[in-house]
């Protein structure tokens, strides 16, 4: 009997969806990297670099508490050519595959030393050899990486590690390849592939997260970020207000458009996500897909993802045939949130990190907040 590939895996995925006691991806309980924002150096709106250009990678990092910081972090990154065919697991640089298949390994790169290497072993904390770049960054995890002029593949890739407070290293003798020494915090191994632009049709831009609006029902008050006083002063606790003020000065993503939604009661709430349907970037005739992912520092999200594809000409993306009847037309979806943890009497500031991906490498993030009591 011929067996279908992936059938057991798919069954397990479905079972995993029903698992109840495991930590949820929507919960921010430790330092997390929610995505990588790519922007071409010299053309920050564009997310797809071309051969000969440099791409700026910003690893968007969030913390459960307001005092979380990346000032003590160290990032080690290897940049290379993405493999021709990737069947799963961790991608391997095409340069490495070519070397393994040909049996010819050029010495000279710190990566071929066949021993553990940390950032101090890399001359100038950056080395490019045979098309492969290895680099280290301390502090906020952002780095510029070059795309060689003669880059011919469709995609480039990166892999490495972000150490919250330790020293990053590369060790080819281990399965993990990367790790952190003396790390009093999180170790986040990371990787990714992104397309390299050939012509105008390949060009992609990061989605504009400022276009995404979120409303929460029921709420007590609405306080825009520009400092307008509350309609009813004293409605929030002083502690909550203080935290909200700090957040207003320290929001991630596009700070100019991150509204505060203070003053919600304990109990389930409905978040309504809205995005102007015609503000999506086009890929030829079709609109690009938008994948919204919501994370929270408190309470429980109903689910992680909302996806609007080009077929989403209806209000409810996958469900009914209700046409968009708003003017201008909106894409809209409801996600519930339940702050069912014990809420302090003084109130609890809750932050929502909302990422927007276009499933072509484009990424952006916004932060929202609410005060629960």
């Amino acid at each position, binding site marked *: *009997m*011929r*067996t*279908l*590939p*992936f059938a*057991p*895996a*798919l*069954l*397990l*995925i*479905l*079972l*995993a*969806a029903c698992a109840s006691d*495991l*930590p*949820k*991806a929507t919960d921010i309980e430790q330092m997390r*990297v*929610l*995505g*990588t924002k790519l922007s071409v150096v010299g053309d920050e709106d564009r997310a797809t670099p071309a051969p000969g250009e440099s791409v700026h990678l910003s*690893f968007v990092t969030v913390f459960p508490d307001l005092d979380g910081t990346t000032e003590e972090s160290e990032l080690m990154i290897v940049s290379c050519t993405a*493999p*021709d*065919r*990737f*069947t*799963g*697991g*961790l991608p*391997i640089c095409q340069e490495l*595959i070519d070397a*393994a298949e040909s049996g010819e390994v050029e010495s000279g790169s710190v990566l071929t030393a066949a021993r553990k290497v940390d950032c101090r072993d890399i001359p100038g904390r950056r080395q490019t050899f045979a098309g492969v770049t290895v680099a280290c960054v301390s502090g906020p995890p952002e780095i510029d990486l070059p795309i060689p002029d003669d880059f011919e593949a469709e995609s480039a890739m990166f*892999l490495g590690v972000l150490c919250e407070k330790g020293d990053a290293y590369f060790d080819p003798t281990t*399965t*993990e390849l990367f790790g952190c020494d003396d790390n009093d915090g999180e170790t*986040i*191994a*990371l*990787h*990714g*592939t*992104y397309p390299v632009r050939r012509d105008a049709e390949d060009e992609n831009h990061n989605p504009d997260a400022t276009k995404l609006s979120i409303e929460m029902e029921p709420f007590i008050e609405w306080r825009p970020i520009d400092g307008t006083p509350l309609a009813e002063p004293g409605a929030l606790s002083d502690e909550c207000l203080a935290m909200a003020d700090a957040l207003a000065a320290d929001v991630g993503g596009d700070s100019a458009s991150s509204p505060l939604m203070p003053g919600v009661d304990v109990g389930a709430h409905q978040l309504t996500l809205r995005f102007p349907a015609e503000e999506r970037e086009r890929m030829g005739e079709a609109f690009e897909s938008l994948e919204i*992912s919501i994370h929270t520092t408190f309470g429980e999200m109903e*689910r*992680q*993802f909302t*996806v609007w594809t080009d077929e989403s000409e209806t209000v*409810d*993306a*996958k*469900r009914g045939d209700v046409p968009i009847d708003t003017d201008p037309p909106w894409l809209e*979806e409801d996600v519930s949130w339940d702050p069912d943890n014990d809420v302090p009497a003084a109130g609890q500031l809750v932050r929502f990190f909302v*990422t927007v*991906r276009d499933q072509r*490498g484009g*990424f952006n993030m916004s932060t929202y907040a609410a005060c629960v009591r």
Partner: protein
Amino acid sequence: MKLVRFGSLRLAIAAVLLLAAARAAAQGAPAEPAPTPSGEGAPAANAAPPASAPPQLIKFVEATWPQAALEQGLTATVEIEIVVAIDGTVKEAKVTTPVGNGFDEAAVEAVKQFVFEPARKNGKPIAARVRYPYVFEMRKEVEPEVVPDAPPAPGQLEGTVLAIEDDAALAGVRVIVSMPDGSNAQSTVTAADGSFAIVNLPPGVYSVRLEGEGRTPREQQEEIVAGQATSVAYRLLEPRDPDAFGAVARIPPPPREVTRRTIAKEQLTRIPGTRGDALRTVELMPGVARPPLGAGLLIVRGSAPSDTQALFEGLPVSLLYHFGGLTSFVNSRLLKSVDFYPGNFSVRYGRRRGGIIEVGADDIKNDAPHGVADINLIDASLLFTMPVSEDAEIALAGRRSYFDAIFTAAAEGSDIQTVAAPVYYDYQLIGTYRPSDRDKLRLMLFGSSDNLKLLFEQPVDGDASVAGDFAFGTEFHRAHASWRRQLSKDVDQDVDVAVGALDVDFGLGEAFKFNLSGTDIYARSEWRGRVSEKVRLIGGLDLFFLPGQFTYKGPPVAQSEGNPDNQGGASFSNRDEITVTDDFTVIQPAVYLETDINLFPVRFILGSRVDYYDEIEEWSYDPRGSAHLTVADGTTLKGGIGMFSQPPQFQETSPGLGNPDLEPTSTLHVGLGFEQRIVEGFTVGVDGFYKHLYDNIVGTQFGNAPFFTNDGEGRIFGGELSAKVDPRGRFFGYLSYTLSRSERNDRGEGWRLFDFDQPHILTVAAVYRLGRGWEAGATFRMVSGNPNTPIIGSSLNTITGAYSPLYGRLNSDRNPAFNRLDLRIEKEWRWPDWKLALYLDVQNVYNAENPEGIVYDYRYDQSEPVRGLPIIPNLGLRGEI
């Protein structure tokens, strides 16, 4: 005066008595008085058989004096050891002290035609071994005074025909007598008390043939003496040979396979935990590993599920179970038996290197209409049979599940919208026609359908790619025509032709879509011939033809076994995506030849098979051989060795997905076994096996072109212990234990465990008829857990936002052991024309957790076990007319 040649009968009988008496004394039974041959005071056919008795010769056959010895006036006494079967015929005859000059062969040939009243113990016939000295001596005979012109007075043949298992009278058995040249043919039918009489038979030696409904036909010779009545008692066996049927005699196949396990009709639907499904019983056989979550995968002696083939009436079945294991595609009450060959099977079966399951349809009853209706918590089925004429009958069966109603209600209010709730159905229509005593035609129309479609309105947590429709649909329909023909006394032919449609659909939103559809065509012709007393030949041609098309969208196809990503690893978001659409045509012809050489006590079966695989333009040649040695009565040693080839799976060779230049894989099977009948109906067996897998198909190291190569190998070894009690009385049961190890070596990277390596498999099943219509049974299984690959870390794909697992050593961990108890209880009420049964079949009675795997959180940092199937009760009602 002339010399007359004959063996000394009375002296020989005395010797038999002495031996039989000694044996009976050893068994604790008293010796019986001297027997006499047929016609001279043989026990009356209607007399009650004694409780314990040695065999009694009732028909003596005079040997042909060797010509050379006769010319020299030589005499001799040949000592022969005879095994008398339970029906009184001679099963084996072996010369213990050869004397030469042709006397040995002549004596054996005569002795093989002897007929005995079988030995008995506690009233039941048993096989027995006796010593018999066949004496060739000369004596003078006075020629009788012949009255010229007076014709010899006719004789008659009278007797009774009984059932071997309980001596019940068999009515309606046709008794046909004729001279060897076919003259003086007469026939009659036994009366209600099993008696018959054929009178006015000229004296001489006659061929007597008995043909009874549901019984193995029997043929033998009787001597009719002038003016006398020859009284006989014949006992007919139920057919053990699944190839025997109806009134058409067939050349029975020899025991070709080293190991063959048969589940007979009486047991197919009564074993607890199988929900009355015949094909589920195979999972309880030795050497069969347990599939995860009860999915209908057949993992035989450490081989992959795709290495084992199920056949229905000789032709492969595409899809064996509904929804991967819930229930099989055919109504079990249509089946006669399920034969399971875990390895070293005949060259009649090919294109597979693991095991074979052959499912045979039963003959449809021709006496009257019959029906069975069964309704339980999961599905309802109906079976109806009826005679069309004396030579034709039809059967119609259908089944449909109603799990969809329960599922829809359970899914109400969740994020899962039911577009098409899980539902399955199957149907079978079978018609049989016997245009002559030598022919049997059968037409079967059957099909099966499974369908499920769910809508995940938004992606599942952890993988944004998994959203949308989850669709699972399989459907096949087939028309199968067969013709069984007896070409001559020594040659049979079977011809089978089948045409069917197949459609398989599987999808998970936009992340994965697979559809395969096609028309499958099978044609097969097999000839079986008896070349001589010692040699039989089987030859055949078979052809598999499948034009079809498939569409695939999803991650690049990778090695399925030995790939942790196939065990629920990296998310779809983190994999590449390919789309392939292809038309294909599979053409796989084959030819095979097998010879069976009986050199008692050893039998050799030697065969060869040649296959061609058009899709890869490759051939394979499989030589196979086995030997069976009868060491003693009820004791058999068997061994076999052979090559078994298999073509790659279509996704491994399809351009765009795989490598069209792959070669077929092959496996060397070596087996050795021992079977001992302890008493009639109770046998134990021990089998050892070793398999080496060559040219295993594995993925390339980095997943790049050519994507798959034949750079893998495997080794599997183990032993099986089995004990079986046949359903002859109130009780039947099985005990099986398998100890084995199955390993693979991919690309020379070192040996590792097979994904489904289960070193210990213990199964105990017992069914007991309590009386007053009650029957109860239990099945217990204890099985090693499957290996799994630990996840030792993860890496975040910051572009997709999903984590990819980092794996430890492949299959270096193991799930906890599995244990489960199933119970079944049934109460049956009987009336003259119908019966009703109420049954309860409970799977996993004590609700054992039986973790089947591990589920991790979104970043593979914490985990939980995945619980196996819980307690599943199934209450049902069955009516039968």
